């Protein structure tokens, strides 16, 4: 009877540990914090730091985009919250946007983050009701970032100086 119990515990333990290893190699966390955040997300107990999120939002409105991004990254260390990821992508867009040219590096990073936000959103649709933003969906933001990365005749159009940042 005791033997059977040890066997059952051993099998269950082996399977659970194997699943954990597969999950680790599939998600490739970079720090212990990300491992913990990932585990919380897997168990449905993951929550972002609301205080940091609000502080980052204030910085974003003051156009301190880099600082806002860092604060949002601290608020969502596991990169599991679609809304926070959307705001990070938006910060990349706003910082990278220029009247004469776009910063392609920042736009590329923004595109990666907005794609992550779309993947995290239920059914891939993410809507953010923030009156201070001109784009409210992740799809709009993605299209805008992609447009900025595509080379075209518009790049040499002198009237582009009149375009507006969203």
């Amino acid at each position, binding site marked *: 009877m005791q033997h059977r119990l040890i066997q059952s*515990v051993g099998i269950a333990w082996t399977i659970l540990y194997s699943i954990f290893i597969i999950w680790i190699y599939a998600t490739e966390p970079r720090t212990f914090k990300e491992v913990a955040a990932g585990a919380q997300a897997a168990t449905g107990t993951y929550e972002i730091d609301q205080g940091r999120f609000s502080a980052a939002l204030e910085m974003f409105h003051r156009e301190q985009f880099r600082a806002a991004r860092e604060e949002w990254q601290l608020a969502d260390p596991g990169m599991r919250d679609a809304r926070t990821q959307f705001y990070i992508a938006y910060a990349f867009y706003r910082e990278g946007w220029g009247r004469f040219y776009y910063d392609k590096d920042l736009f590329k990073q923004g595109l990666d983050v907005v794609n992550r936000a779309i993947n995290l959103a239920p059914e891939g649709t993410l809507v953010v009701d923030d009156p201070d933003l001109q784009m409210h969906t992740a799809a709009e933001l993605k299209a805008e970032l992609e447009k900025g990365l595509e080379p075209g005749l518009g790049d040499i159009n002198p009237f582009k100086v009149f375009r507006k940042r969203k």
Partner: protein
Amino acid sequence: MNTVQRSRNRALLRFVLLPMIFLTVALLGGLRIDVDTHAFIFIPPPLITLILSVLLMTLFIRGHAIELRRWVTSEQSTLTNISHVLTLLTLYFASAQALNSVLPERGLLFWLFSFFFLWTLWNNQFSNFDARRLLRSLAVLFGTAFFLKHMFLASLFAPEGGWAKKVAGFLLEVGTLGTLDYQVFAPATGYISFFTLALYVGGLILLTPSPEPEERSALALLRAYQNLPPLERMTVRASIMEPQTNQPALAQEVSTETETIEIRGEVVEAESEDTLAGEKEKGKR
């Protein structure tokens, strides 16, 4: 320790501890630490390590480090068989990841190391091995690869190395037409790899050829004898034949007598030397 406790401990080792050890090896075998950011990098086992691991498993079976017929048999319950299969599977993946831990990640060195592993393991398939020798051979093989990757190459390509190291690294890169492509990691990677290999070898030491102790020890002895090279077989035959000619009790008596004689002989010799010296002195006088 009574039989029940012994049996329980054996079950704990087989069903819980061994899978845990091998799975930890599987987890840590692909872990590297980035040299700049110190972030984790998880490298899944490359295809070649899976092939090498198959060779290792066949080597374990051929070297009787695993008696497959005793691990998985129709005489055992389904639960026991499932448990044993899982333990063997964890051993397979641990072997793959232990190899992954000592193989360079890419470039020419990756293929060179892989080739040497393949060559060694393939050659070993045709050698006579018992479990203990196989374990020693594997420990040396992994130890050598660890030394080459985590000590020699890591030191040669270390970013903080002196100019001599940098020149040597550069010449090596140029000499191999840039195919070397060695990836540098933080020193912690070497420590993780060392721990992983120690755990893997420890797991192999704990792994018994058969899950339960062999009842028919004569058969096991015969099998061990068959695995020996001809010279050692002769030695075994000679040592078996020796006590057969003399009865064990008689042999013990004979050996005791010999020892007594030897001791007595020394004492007698010592006395006789003294006596001789005394006689000489007397003669001089």
